[in-house]
Every structure is written in C-alpha cells, then in structure tokens.
C-alpha cells in the first residue's frame, strides 16, 4: 500500500520491483525502447494509484447466478492535463486505464529574457471545472511550471482538492514549493529524490525525461 510521507503526498510502495524499475530508467545505458517500456510501467502504477483516490458510490448489481452483489460504482469524471512535452508521455498510461478520457494540454516554457516559466499555450476540456484532473508531468523539481499549470486549472474553476499531480520523481524542496502554493492538491509520486543541484536538476534524477522518452 502507498504511504503518506508528507501531507497530501502519496508515495507508491517502495517494493523490489519498483526500485528496480527506477534503476532501469535512471541508467544512461538503458536503451530507448527499454526506457519507454519501463517508464510506461511506472506511469501505469501512478495512474492506478491516482484513480484509487477517486470516490465511488454504492451500487448493487445482478450476478449471473441471480444473486445480487452489493458493490460500488465509479463516480465522477476524470480528465488528464499534460504539461507539454514530457507530460504527454504519461497520457497513454492514463488512456490505458480510462479509455475515452479527455486530455488537455498546457505548454509552459522558460522565458529567455526573464528566465521565469511562461505560459505559451493551453487547451483544456470545456467542462474541466466539473472534473477530477490528473495533472501529468514526470518530474517535480522546483515546481515552477507545475505551479503555473495548476494556477491555470484553478482559474478555470477546478477545485484544488480534485487535482492529482502525478509524477515519477520529485524531491522534498519541490513538494514544499508546490504545496506552499496549493496545499490541497494531492501529489502522487513513485520516488522522492535527495534534492536539487545548482542547476536545479533533480539528484540523482534521470536526466531530461522528455529527451530520453522522445529523442535519444
């Protein structure tokens, strides 16, 4: 079962399998097909964990033997919002669990003049305010772009407690920065790294996730 190392942070169980999967995707000698396959496996686990936080309602169904079964049914609509480009790598994992899920996109890039993140583009489902939102970005380092993206969501009427920020690797500093802005947003992660280096990269991290997933 997942643990809660910090308030509103959900960490996947640190099993042999999961720590081994992280070793594979961190190793620079891992081939690209392997990187994609094993990153996708971690993403699937993150999505499943995120979905587990969604509410259900009581539901009674008829079984094939005629007996009724007192179960539960899904409640609430989900949509995904990926932060372009690396976050898009997580869309398929969400689709594998929720077939016809709506997906919005937000592009945030570092402004060359101010060195601050700047919102370039957003395209979100119209009814996003009524939905649970899975914010997708594989790495939470300083939290700069995630904060900006969350801000966009909240301005569109999404309730912060209905946002789940899914990432593969984060660090305590990033969590604190992000939660300072949005304490009610749930962070779902698979690994909490030591921290950031001088260039504000996660350490040990795995390099640029988008580069490894899409290019190299």
């Amino acid at each position, binding site marked *: *079962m997942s643990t809660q190392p910090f308030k509103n942070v959900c960490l996947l*169980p640190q*099993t*042999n*399998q*999961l*720590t*081994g*999967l*992280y*070793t*594979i995707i*961190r*190793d*620079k*000698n891992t081939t690209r097909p392997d990187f994609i*396959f094993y990153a996708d*496996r971690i993403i*699937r*686990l993150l999505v*499943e964990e995120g*979905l*587990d*936080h*969604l*509410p*259900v309602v009581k*539901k009674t*169904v*008829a*079984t*094939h*033997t005629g*007996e009724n*079964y007192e*179960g*539960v*049914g*899904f409640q609430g609509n989900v949509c995904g919002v990926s932060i372009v480009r690396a976050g898009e790598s997580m869309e398929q994992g969400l689709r594998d*669990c929720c*077939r016809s899920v709506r997906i919005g996109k937000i592009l945030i890039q570092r402004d060359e003049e101010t060195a601050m993140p700047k919102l370039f583009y957003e395209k979100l489902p119209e009814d996003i305010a009524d939905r649970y939102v899975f914010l997708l970005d594989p790495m939470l380092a300083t939290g700069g772009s995630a904060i900006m993206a969350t801000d966009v969501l909240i301005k569109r009427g999404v309730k912060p407690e209905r946002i789940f920020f899914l990432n593969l690797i984060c660090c305590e500093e990033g969590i604190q920065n992000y939660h300072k802005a949005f304490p009610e947003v749930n962070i779902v992660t698979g690994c909490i790294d030591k921290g950031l280096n001088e260039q504000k*990269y996660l*350490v*040990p*991290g*795995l*390099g*640029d996730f988008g*580069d*490894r997933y899409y290019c*190299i």
Partner: protein
Amino acid sequence: MTEIPSDLQRSTNKTGIVNKHLESRYTPPWTTPYIIGIGGPSGSGKSSVASKIVASINVPWTVLISMDNFYNPLNEEERQRAFNNEFDFDEPQAIDLDLVYETISNLKKGKKCQIPVYSFVHHNRVPNKHVTIYGASVIIIEGIYTLYDPKLLDLMDLKIYVDADLDICLARRLSRDIVSRGRDLNGCIDQWERFVKPNAVKHVIPTMQNADAIIPSMSDNGIAIKLLVDHINAKLEKKSLEHVKELIQLGNVHDIQSLENHPYIHILPKTNQVKAIITMLLDKNTGLDDYIFYFDRIATLLLSIALDDICIESHDPITTSLNITIPNPAHINFDNITAINMIRSGDIFIHSLKMTLPNVSIGKLLIQSDSMTGEPQLHCKFLPPHLEQFKKILLLEAQIINGASMIMAIQVLLEYGAKLENINVVVYSATETGLRRVLNAFNDEVKICVAMLIPEKELRLGHNLWCLTRFIDSKYFGSK
C-alpha cells in the same frame, strides 16, 4: 502463524537440506498408478488385448509399455548370430528384466522414467533415444515374459495371461512376419522350431500360473475383456474417489487462522478502483468489451503485486545521463521469470502478461476435472525447459474453487524441478476452502496473489455462490 504439528513439520537435517518428500502433503494420483501386466506366448494376441483395454477404460494418461524395448544390447558376436537368425531372442535372458523392474518401480513411485528404444535392425538400443514417461494413472506392460519375474509380479495390480494354442500362435507369427516384416517362410519356421516354441513351452506357458486371469485369444474374447475392463474400472473409480477424498481432507483445517493475515497470501488491496472493477465484472449486464477491458486492468494490477517481491540481483553502481553516479541501486531482472497458464482459464492473463513482461516464456498445463467424480486429471503439459533456473514461476488461473487442479498443477511444477518458494500462484477469485487446501497441501508455503477471496462462512450462508461456477473465463472468451 498456525502451529504445525511436529510430525508434519518439514524435516531438516543438520546441513539444512529440506527433505524433498515432505515438501508436499499431497499424494498425486500418478504416484500410485494402477499397473496391469499382460503376458503370453508370442503371437497369442497380447497387444490386441492390451489395446482393447486401453480403448475401453477411458482414463487419460494410460501408458502402454512393450517389453520389446528392453532387449539387452548385443555384443559383436551375438549381433552376427542375430543377423544369421541364430540368436535366441526368446529366452528370458534376452530381456533386461532388471531394467524393466527398475523402470516400473520408479513409475510406481511417480518418478519420471526413460524407456530405451530398441532397434531390431542394429540389434542394439538406439543411442540417445528414449521415450520419457511420467505421470501415468494406468500402466500396461505387455510382453512374453511379463509374468515371469517374481519381483515384477509384486509391482502389478492385475496380471493377465493371454492363452492360445501354439499352432495358432505360429500361424499368426507367420502371417505377421512374412506380410508385415518381409521375412521368408523358411527362416520363420526355422526360428519357430529352434527358439520360439521351445522357450514358450519351457518358460512362457508356466507363467500362466502367476496370472489373476487367463483370457482366450480368440477374436470373440469380447466377454472376457469386458469382465476385465469392468474390474479395472471399479478399481480406478475407487482410486479416484480416494483421491478426491484426500483433496477434500486437505481443506479441513480446524485451527482457523485468518487468510487475510497469512504471510503467503497476498490479497489485492480493496481500494475504490478494485472494488468498482470487481463489481463491474460481477454484473451480468456488463458488456463484453467492458468486461475484457476491466479484467485486463485488474489482471495487470494482480501481476504487478505478484512481481513486487522480485529478487534483487545486485547493487552495481549506475550513472544517469547527467553523469550522476548512483552507488548502490537495486537491479532486477525480469528474464528470470516464467509464467505457466492453466488452459484455458489462465489464458485470460495473456494480455496483461504481455503488457507487463513482453518476453516472458509461457508454459501451459491442461488439467480437467472428471465430470463424474470431480477428480482432476492432468491431460497435457508444455513447460519451459529448466524450470529450476527460474527465480519466479507465475502460475496463472482465473478461479480456485475446490483447489484440486491447482494442487495438481503445483505438484507437476515441483516434479519438473521448480522450487516451491519460487512458485507464485496468481488467481482472480478463490474460495477460502480452495485456498486452504492448496496451502495445506504444500505446508502453508506457497505464495498466492488473489483479487477476491470468498470466506467459507459466506458460502455457508448461501451468499456469493457465483464464485462456485467458472464464469470468469467463460465470459472473457465468450464461450462456455
């Protein structure tokens, strides 16, 4: 943990080697095969009697062994004589009766055996060629000296002598040897006069007194064979009832320890998603598309749980693409895993398995329950070679109802070299009794990952009875 009575504890000697025979408390039916010997002179019609019996008893895993495979290899001089038709193949010494005894007694212990293949062209055993026999419920041995060796007689449950006048035997031999084997008449008669007939009179006919039944070799021996078959069927039925009874007893555990806390049982956490998927799969109105999609989802979760304790192979340092070194990361290797599917219900895991372990080698086992007795019967198996080398063997099945076929499947894997601690059963739904039987058969030490476990007390109250029918795979495949 349940206190295990000391006489049932695994006996461990001082070097720490576990006694293999105590790894399982279950006696699979193939470790107690029913053995039938059929003897009688050459040409008396033994093989036709044997095949009539095989055809009428209708038990899977019946093995017919001909004593012809056990001729002693000849030396150069003997071989020369054999080529000149001067070697006596009809005396008892021509057959390696010790090897026959060894083979049959090993089969009787349920061990895997290799039977030599004899070449009548070279008068020698064919090198590196043998027939492997394993897991027989009924073994029929057929040959002129089947009822000759007292040691061998002791192993047999039923001894049959096929009787025929020697002139009838000669007539049969002549037509067989000349028509089917292309021999010439004079050679055949010569061999008959010199070897076959004297040996039959001296050694074979006297074995008639060792038989439980002597049957005529006429073409109308139907009644005699029917009597024999009825007798054999009655014995086999008793055996399978005992087998079923043994399986039932394995489920009778008086000290009820909650399975939820059992160290070897991993139940998929009952999260909202899992509960909702289970509900959807039970809903008879769920369409096939949704059913398959959601089953694949929960199967992927189950497989992931089963893989969580994959062993860590090493901690060699790695470097990330930013040239940061990680000194001791955990390295795992998914290639050390194999999956064995129970045909067909285990095959519903194929999709999720390929998504999780794309290159995994997959074995298959077909075990079916006899519709009359409910006894599980092993029909066929395709296992990856060197099972002992895999560090995790996923044994996949949709449902455990009474546990019988699962117990048999685990036993087969153990006999093919799998280590019990490496076997990991993955099953969607299971009854408490079925799970307890499986655990109890293997000293509470077989790891089982299950999505839904139905407690015995609910079934007693008449709730959740759907778990007693095999609906999971019927719906998934869309056929009964």
